[in-house]
């Protein structure tokens, strides 16, 4: 398919997904190479979030396979999948609003038991997200959208994942924070974490992605390296089509 080297870290192959009678994915195939940032683009209701849910085991595909590091994820529960090394930054952040920022970040380390290393990682997060230092004991629900996004990212990294999946990490953020989030995604990636992200904002996402796929009403209509896609006029068309379908 795309320009990916040997064995991909994550692979969806011929996934078909249904909500009741309605089909959301049609033979969806996506691969994420080790160490890459892969972006899934598409308009509203094209099935992007459902793709995240398939990877995380929150929704089960009717047919097709999802493999991570060569082993199938189909049939595993969400906690089991998380323990394999996938962390998530969900759509709209989904922090634990009544828990403190510190507790939220530490919840990310739920699957770990190495207390000291967890404490060190918490410090590391505070250097990566310096603003959160003063907010640690505040209710997570009281933070601004941008700050919440930082907490959600820190929370995801606390499990020391091999891959992070993110659902529209820039949605609803001020331009300042959008740049900051993209920069952070790049930093995270440079530290060796593979990233699979869902975005509506194609031009932003293609800035940092290695590869990208374009989803339109459940079908991949376009894919390739980010560099080539950036100049592809079809991306604009596909996009408008997707937006119309929504």
């Amino acid at each position, binding site marked *: 398919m795309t320009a990916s080297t040997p064995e991909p870290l994550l692979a969806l192959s011929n996934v078909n997904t249904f909500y009741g009678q309605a089909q959301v994915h049609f033979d969806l195939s996506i691969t994420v190479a080790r160490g890459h940032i892969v972006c899934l683009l598409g308009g509203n209701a094209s099935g992007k979030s459902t793709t995240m849910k398939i990877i995380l085991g*929150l929704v089960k595909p009717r047919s097709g396979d999802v493999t991570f590091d060569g082993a199938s994820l189909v049939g595993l529960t*969400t906690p089991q999948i*998380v323990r394999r090394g996938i962390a998530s930054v969900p759509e709209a952040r989904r922090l*634990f609003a009544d828990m403190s920022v510190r507790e939220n970040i530490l919840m990310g380390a*739920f699957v770990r038991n190495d207390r000291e290393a967890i404490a060190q990682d918490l410090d590391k997060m505070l250097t990566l997200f310096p603003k959160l230092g003063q907010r640690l004991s505040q209710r997570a629900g009281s933070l601004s959208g941008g700050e919440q996004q930082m907490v959600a990212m820190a929370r995801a990294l606390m499990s020391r994942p091999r891959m992070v999946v993110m659902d529209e990490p820039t949605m609803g953020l001020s331009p300042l924070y959008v740049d900051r989030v993209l920069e952070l995604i790049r930093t995270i990636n440079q530290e060796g974490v593979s990233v699979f992200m869902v975005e509506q904002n194609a031009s932003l996402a293609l800035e940092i992605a290695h590869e990208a796929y374009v989803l339109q009403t459940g079908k991949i209509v376009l894919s390739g390296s980010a560099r080539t896609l950036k100049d592809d006029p079809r991306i604009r068309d596909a996009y408008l089509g997707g937006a119309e379908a929504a």
Partner: protein
Amino acid sequence: MSSWLDYTINGLIVGNVYALVAVGLALIFGVSRLINFAQGSIYLVGAYIGWVAVVQLHTPLPLTIIVVAVAAAIVGLIIERFGLRPLQNSVRIAPLLATIGISFVLDQLVMLTFSPNPRALPSQLPDVRFQVGGGTIGPLDLLIAGVGLTSALLLFVFLRYSKLGWAVRATAQDRDAAMQMGVDVNRVNQAVFGIAAALGGVSGLLVGMYYNQIDTAMSLQATLKGVVAEVVGGAGNVPGAVIGSLLLGLVESYGVAVFGTSYRNLFAFLLLVVVLVLRPNGLFASARQAPPEPLTGTFIAPSRPVRIPRWALAVAAAIFAILPLFPVSFYVLQTLINAWLLGMLALSLTLVAGTIGQVSLGHAALLAIGAYTSALLSLTLNVPVGLAIIGGGLMSAALGTLLISPSFRLRGHYVSIATLAIGEIVSLVILNWESVTRGPIGISGIPPLSLFGTELISPTSIYWFSFAVMVVLALLQGRLLTSHLGRSFRAIRDDDIAARAYGLSLNRYKSLAFIFGGFAAGVSGGIAAHLYSYINHETFNTQQSILALTVVILGGLGNVVGAMLGAVALVGLPEVFRIAAEYRILIYGIVLLLLVRFRPQGLLGTI
């Protein structure tokens, strides 16, 4: 003479007991958005295990408490594992109904094991009282306060400092997000049910000691009080549940001080209804908080109803109509008369619960209103019985709709709680409004059924009369459902936001459904009053409400033919198999559990 301080102490002590129940309910609601109607049954089990420990095993007090907590926790774990976990992916009403079924089964098992007679549960503490200010306080008061405080402290430490406690809090706030952190939600549920059951069981033990008496009626009372306290504090809010409980204890205690003991529960349920109507998120919820029930989504299992051809229905009706012409026993006719009366109630409930999606747990109150109205009209005003029954139906329609209308804006579980409370309020008003209802004495000498001056005394004529009334009501309801109105009802049930967007006035449609349903139930109650010739405030109780709900689910929610079939099946089959009366409720509970698990759409399917 008790002083105000005594009433305050009593209120706080009783509040502590409620808190042990309510905290468990709040924990469970928090993580699984479920009102556990079996919480009171665990409390009952706790009280009886305590009785066995104290009276038969002579355990010392600390050991008694530990034995009760552990045994109750085990019951809680069993309920979670086998009663609720299999329902994780079913419709949202399923777990609620399952806890109702479980509570019937547990209560009946306790009753069958220990007999329904009250037992004394001696307090294991010396019976002395110390003067405090103007009041007195005893060792048991201190014990209850101590257990309450210790439990609160342990729970706080658990939630705040243990990993599993964090998982519980995270799950309560966002289940999906918690799963994405690697939290195993089944373990969280297990923990929460275990803790809730341990606290509930100990609460039952303490109450038994406090009043020095335990009996099986404790169960429903405890569930109700716990739910009141929890909802007052804000569903799912653990500290709120504690405060709500203390408040409830005080309100009850002061209410009793001013008005007398028989008003105790009335205050509890009035408090609930007021809070539900004015602040459905509880007293302490922040204004921005979303209501704890999602506003859309299917509460009732959709399915394809079984089509029964008209001629088959006509044949079935004809067979039942001519049945008395054959040499059938008085006993068979009697059984079927009961089935027809229950069928009318089920018609009413299937309209309200199935067609517009308001799952009522207090439907027996409509029977009571119809029965009292009809009885009083014929007795005191000499209204002919036929007219009096119609009057009963009209009164049920009017009063029932009026009483329920404040909770029209509630959905899902909250409707069930509100209707349950309203049902209790009706029964308590009947108990206390002596000048009209004759209070606890009840009404006797109600004239027998009669039609156009002819008394219906023979079982055959009563059979025909009740069967005919039910069939007429069923035909009317069938008409209603196929009309435009019926479609609007279903639109409201499926998605009231969308229905509102189409310009449907929810309150008007909900009122219409309750008016029609209230009439059918009131007529059933009216007939029953003249049939029994004696009624009191306990004749129409929650057990009947739940039986009607089981009938309706058995037949298929919203399904008119199903309601009648369900009534015949649930009343008739235990007779056919000659199941002893004391096992029947147990059977109903098991039927409900099996239905929810294996055939939530009922025999004939939901409509």
